[in-house]
């Protein structure tokens, strides 16, 4: 079972996160302040850390910097009421793997936590880069940028190709609209309307054209998932 450390001083929020993560199958420890969080996290035994930006005693950025300086590379998702883009950049620079402004939807946190955990599990260096992604009967050649489903060629626009690549790299996980916007379009604001939904539904139409079983699913209230069911 994956172990998550939640460093959050507000008991209500900590409880909300712990309960939700528990239901999602994680074992959750809670640290109520920065020092305790740093102490617990310093042996690197957790699979991921949810770290509040503003904590009594030692703030989240300092905890993060101390951890990274000590060589602890546990993936960190930073939570913050400081939602502006520049605060986000500060958080990412300090070494967090993702930055989530408060208030957040729990599904968003869960999806991002899964994503950073998965990313950390993939060895980054020394291995040959992946040139081919596949899921079920869907195959993508990254170099020639060709997509086939059951051998049938599918023509995609460049952006649709990047969207599919991201979904394939996170196959089986829930990815949220903001995650797609950040990774595929490289913008960090919420366009508010269903801009992303339209892109996804176009991609879905192209993928599922021809009566094959649907691969790209909408997860209500959270986002999308590439999966068999």
């Amino acid at each position, binding site marked *: 079972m994956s172990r998550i450390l939640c460093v959050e001083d507000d008991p209500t929020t900590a409880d909300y996160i712990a309960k939700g993560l528990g239901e999602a199958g994680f074992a959750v420890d809670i640290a109520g302040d920065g020092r305790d969080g740093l102490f617990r996290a310093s042996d690197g035994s957790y699979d991921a850390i949810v770290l509040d930006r503003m904590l009594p005693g030692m703030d989240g950025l300092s905890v993060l910097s101390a951890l990274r300086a000590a060589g602890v590379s546990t993936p960190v998702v930073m939570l913050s009421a400081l939602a502006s883009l520049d605060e986000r950049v500060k958080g990412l620079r300090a070494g967090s793997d993702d930055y989530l402004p408060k208030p957040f939807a729990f599904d968003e946190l869960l999806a991002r936590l899964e994503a950073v955990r998965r990313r950390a599990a993939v060895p980054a260096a020394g291995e040959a880069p992946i040139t081919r992604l596949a899921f079920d009967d869907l195959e993508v050649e990254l170099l020639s940028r060709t997509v086939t489903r059951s051998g049938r060629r599918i023509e995609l626009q460049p952006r649709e190709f990047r969207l599919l690549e991201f979904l394939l790299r996170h196959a089986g996980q829930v990815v949220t609209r903001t995650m797609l916007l950040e990774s595929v379009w490289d913008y960090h*604001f919420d366009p508010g*309307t269903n801009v992303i939904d339209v892109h996804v539904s176009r991609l879905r139409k192209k993928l599922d054209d021809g009566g094959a079983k649907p691969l790209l699913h909408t997860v209500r209230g959270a986002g999308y998932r590439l999966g068999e069911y």
Partner: protein
Amino acid sequence: MPRETRSAVLPDLPWLARRRPQSTITRIATILFIGLLLGMAIILGFIARVTQGQLDADARALILAERAAITQAFGRDGADSAAAIIHGEMRVPGPLAMLLLDARGRAIAGNIAAWPADLPADSRFRRLDLTRKDRPGAETFALIASPLPDGHRLLVGRSLEEQERLTRTLTTSLLAAVGLSLVLAVGISLVLTRTIAARVQAIADVAGAVAAGDLTRRVALPAAGNRDAFDSLGDALNAMLARIESLLDELRSVTDGLAHDLRSPLTRMKARIDRMARGGDQSGHEIAAIGHEADALLAMLETSLEISRVEAGIGRDGFRQMDLAALVNDMVEMYEPLAEDNGVQLTALAATPVPVHAHRELLGRALSNLIDNALRYGASGGIIEVAAEATAGGARFSVADHGPGIARAAHGDALRRFGRLDVARPAGGAGLGLSLAAAIARLHGGALQLLSNRPGLRVTIDLPGEG
């Protein structure tokens, strides 16, 4: 969890209104006095030194010349000849004192009654008080006493009364200078500080009045030209006050608008909760609806906060070199499928790169808001054009639709935060998008303009160039 930041209570500022700068007058007067005095003392001291030196040299030269003449005559023709020279000199009154003694100490010639006690004949210059026979009272002399052959002794001296007079004159002048500089210092500093105090007091009075609550007060300034440092200070203060006043107005209208716009969704939420409390059968649907209302409220607050952040100038350190045309193409590409679903043709007119120094994310957000508004309110026109171009003064991007547009008179309302034009408009959006875009334009030193597209609305944002 957001931390509360308590705003500092305005401190009481009694000194602004009451304290007169009396001590400043004293301080300036003292500095002036010391300065003037030092200056005069240095000049007088220099004059005294130079003159005294010259007079000393003259006196010694005269003494040596007289001694040489007498010694020479003595050596050639004896004591009588020397005495004759001395008698000759004594015939006209002058500054000289002379005395020739024989070996037994008797005076042969000269205008001094007796050889001064203990004066050795060692040919050295000395300064001594002597009384001449033909003059009342003692005078100070520079003198030299020399031995002559056969035990004779000769004293030659020159009166230093002129030098003494000069010293006295200089001392008097210095004292007069002290008095004069004191009067001048006090006078000048009084005039100076009166002027300065009056100017400062005028500005302090305005600041005090504003602190007391009258935000409309401003520093009075000359109409044009001849601006001094105080006018600049007043100018800066006035600009600051104008900014504070407009910010307060803005704050008031935002607070009012926020309260107004929060009321209806909150009322709807309360109604749904009440229905559920009474045991409505569609609680799942109601909870989802409440969730949507809450999301909309949060989005509204978030946008409102973002506007405040941008207006406070936060984000300037995020400026980078970027291509405005690429941004326009990005955004059009992002919105194109949505536009097509709404039956709108979204076109990018940005073929050539337009380099700007700007905040990519914020400009992206501004552009996305403008496109969103155009899709929301101008979709009936069928075509929306998004353009980026370099201009003489920098760069410009615009979003133009062919919908109903906004009447010219209503442009101001459209830009005001929470200034939704038609409250009954079905689509959400609390009218924050346009004011956020305007705030982002201002952050970049640019401006947002609403223009008529004949028909429709064209929103342009001008960005200044480098420098």
